[in-house]
């Protein structure tokens, strides 16, 4: 067992961990280490061979591995220390991190820990879909790993439940590899993933998307033989009489992502029930001193570009934390108001401008994001078409903020007459 002291330990070598490491290096940190459990750096990007990554960050469309390579190449070139095939077993409140690898067990005492573990997929078990448990039920990410990393074909006749981005991307991927994707069923009355994926992954391949539908039963003793689908009412309950048997050999699930926070909980980090990620302040520090979080472990992002940007902001805070031995307090809380599912960060200082990220809970045409403090509207911004699939990010300027009083962020439908609202800001 090896024991060592280190300035910064980064848990996870995916997009968040890589971007954080590079920025920390840029800020002069040298005693840092990226810990990656896979055999290579890159995280989930390694299996995302489709393009569309990097439009915002690099101004060009890259595949997942290409996007990751931009960061990995820099990490290699700069000689930023990293270990692969190494799993973090535990993190304590005093930032003692135990890792296991074929080389042995290591106990690291870190001045700062960066949580960049990403997220996992919701499973059939979590949804408790009734019926039998045959082979042939996969989460979309698992099916993606099988096809893109393991050269295994998991489906011939597939039904996809959930219109999350990975599900739609897998609809296209399976089609390209000769499988027949019969349909995508989405329980909500709108697509869960990005509009561009509805266009490019479903419409372009004539794969039908049924909104307000769900799978109510899985059939098959050995391998999936079909699923029962049904329309749902406004309370998302299946409507009796609408059930239909759809023969298929595979059910792919794209029904949500959950930040992977088991290690964070070990460390005593408090989670936000809305994001299921850590509660963080504007420095992206959790409520455990010296433990920071960014990327999908903090809240599930729509685009990897924003993960990278968030990790850069985190790294700046962590560098300040190391230099100053602490960070300014953040006494003001940011609450979710009408039609807002979550906001990040959840606590701010009130003394400087801050980037807020949020998601709306329902699609709102002609939407206005409103921030109020002490019952007074201090900021608003129009969003032409707000959908839950797309993260909304905006800078809340320092001048808008009062030094005390909690904030509430709401998403309001403006209808046709939004001009008076504009005037008030």
């Amino acid at each position: 067992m090896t024991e060592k002291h280190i300035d910064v330990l980064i848990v996870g070598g995916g997009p968040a961990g890589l971007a954080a490491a590079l920025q920390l290096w840029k800020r002069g940190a040298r005693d840092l280490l990226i810990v990656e459990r896979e055999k290579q750096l890159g995280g989930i990007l390694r299996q995302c061979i489709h393009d569309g990554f990097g439009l915002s960050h690099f101004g060009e469309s890259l595949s997942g591995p290409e996007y990751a390579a931009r960061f990995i190449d820099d990490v290699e070139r700069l000689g930023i220390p990293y270990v692969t095939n190494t799993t973090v077993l535990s993190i304590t409140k005093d930032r003692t991190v135990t890792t296991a690898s074929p080389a042995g067990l290591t106990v690291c005492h870190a001045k700062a820990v960066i949580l960049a573990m990403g997220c996992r997929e919701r499973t059939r078990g979590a949804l408790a879909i009734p019926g039998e448990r045959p082979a042939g039920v996969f989460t979309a990410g698992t099916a993606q790993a099988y096809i893109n990393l393991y050269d295994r074909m998991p489906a011939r006749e597939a039904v996809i439940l959930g219109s999350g981005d990975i599900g739609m991307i897998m609809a296209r991927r399976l089609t390209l590899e000769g499988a027949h994707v019969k349909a995508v069923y989405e329980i909500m009355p709108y697509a869960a993933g990005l509009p561009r994926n509805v266009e490019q992954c479903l419409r372009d391949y004539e794969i039908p998307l049924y909104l307000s539908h769900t799978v109510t039963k899985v059939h098959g003793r050995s391998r999936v033989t079909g699923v029962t689908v049904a329309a749902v009412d406004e309370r998302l309950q299946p409507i009796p009489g609408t059930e239909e048997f759809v023969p298929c050999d595979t059910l792919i699930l794209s029904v949500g992502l959950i930040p992977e926070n088991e290690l964070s909980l070990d460390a005593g980090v408090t989670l936000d029930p809305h994001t299921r990620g850590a509660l963080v302040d504007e420095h992206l520090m959790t409520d455990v001193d010296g433990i920071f979080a960014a990327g999908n472990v903090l809240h599930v992002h729509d685009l990897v570009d924003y993960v990278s940007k968030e990790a850069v902001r985190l790294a700046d805070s962590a560098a300040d934390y190391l230099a100053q031995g602490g960070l300014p307090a953040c006494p003001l809380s940011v609450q979710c108001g009408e039609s807002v599912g979550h906001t990040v960060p959840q606590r701010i200082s009130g003394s400087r401008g801050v980037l807020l990220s949020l998601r709306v809970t329902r699609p709102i045409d002609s939407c206005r994001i409103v921030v109020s403090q002490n019952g007074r509207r201090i900021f608003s911004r129009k969003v032409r078409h707000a959908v839950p699939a797309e993260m909304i990010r905006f800078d809340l300027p320092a001048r808008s903020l009062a030094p005390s009083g909690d904030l509430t962020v709401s998403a309001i439908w403006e209808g046709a007459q939004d001009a008076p609202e504009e005037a008030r800001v």
Partner: protein
Amino acid sequence: MDHKDLQLYDVLIIGGGVVGSACARELSRYRLRIAVLEKNLDVCFETSGRNTGVCHGGFAYDPGSLKARLCVEGNRMMGQLSEELGFAFRRCGKVLVGNTEEEYARLLEVLAQGETNGATGLRMVDEAELHALVPSVVGKFALFSENSGILDPFMFTVSLAENAAQNGAEYFFDNEVTGIRREPDGTWVVQTLHALFRARWVINAAGLGCGKISDMLGITGYKIIGSKDDYILLDRRMGPLVPMPIYTVPSNTYMGIHVSCTVHGNVLLGPTAEATDDLTYYGVAQHNLDYLYAESMKIWPYVKRGDYIRTYCGILPKWIDENGKIGDFRIEIRDDIAPRAVNLVGIESPGLTASVAIARYVIAMMQEREPFAENDAFDPVRPRRPRFADLSPEEQARLIAEDPDWGEVVCRCEKITRAEILSAIRNPLGCATMTSVKYRTRSMMGRCQGGYCQMRVAKMLEEERGIAPEELVYMRRDGHPFFGRVRGEDPEGGTR
């Protein structure tokens, strides 16, 4: 082929569940040639692996019944069995909670009945003591059974089978019995889907198939119905809130809804006990899930849908006796109709607890007819396989130094290492399904349900066992996860 050319076994056990495997293990104490015929691809793929995993106290059965007697005996043996075989078992106790006067009266009856049955460590506790035992429970009083416990039903069965195999018993999987005949020389010839077997003794330990096998033995007329139990498994995060199983007030034929804990720290809600004629349908029903949620909340108001990680169901074979009631365990040798055949019918709950006691009872019946010579080489101890997650950092470091595979964590949720997966793949029974690895290691059983590790496990199985991608099996024959490689085989003959 003439049956005389067949290898003659002393004992052929039909069924590789917990009872069949307990019989195999206990019989391997004697100098006998033993074979176990199992229709599935591994042990405990049916009732033995699909239950609550509770080691019962023996109080909820009719006095004088085999269920009562063998449950109490089985419960007493469990500590030693766990020591010898290395499966997880915890004598954590159990509470049966009630609120009404009628329930109090019934629990007193159960207590008295338990004492008659020979169960010990039973007492009534008031609300204060109940909450000291289980702070999260809702109830005014309870019957506390300190000798009840929980065990790992998969590894209990696997370890019995492996210990039997280690002592010479042979397992034949994928061998569903299709016919049995008695030869003029008194030996039994058993036809399976793939082979013929011949033996001097046959044991019907077929569980759900007990009625069918009984008919084949010529002992006809047993009526078996299924009692289908749906379950919901909750995240380990909730485990600390359930230090022992929480049961409602039972009848002598139904344990009632319970909120239980597993040896690995998960919380379990179940079972629903629905009568069914279909003994092969393992499908969970929505109305049962709703019912489990509602009923569990009454005694343990902490059920959150966000904590669900899996649902499953099991089926208990219930023998319906001459009076139309659920019968006792029926364990018989019909010398008149089927000599040297032990017929076990209606082995349902508490069969897991009672399994080894049942096996010893069976052997005693056999020995009344034919004394067996002791096997001096019998070793009751199954070689230990450490679990990385349970070890101290020092022990973990030592194992990694010995073998680097201990340092590669394959399943992140349950912290299962490559060394453990490999050991499971190389199991002594030769089972090679994904589920075989799952039951032996807990990989794919955690909160991500294999989202991270299943590809690695599949790849390791293929490589270690030389299985072609399209031949890999998830659990049941023909249950293949893959249709082959993504773009088929390389025409040059190599793999791409």
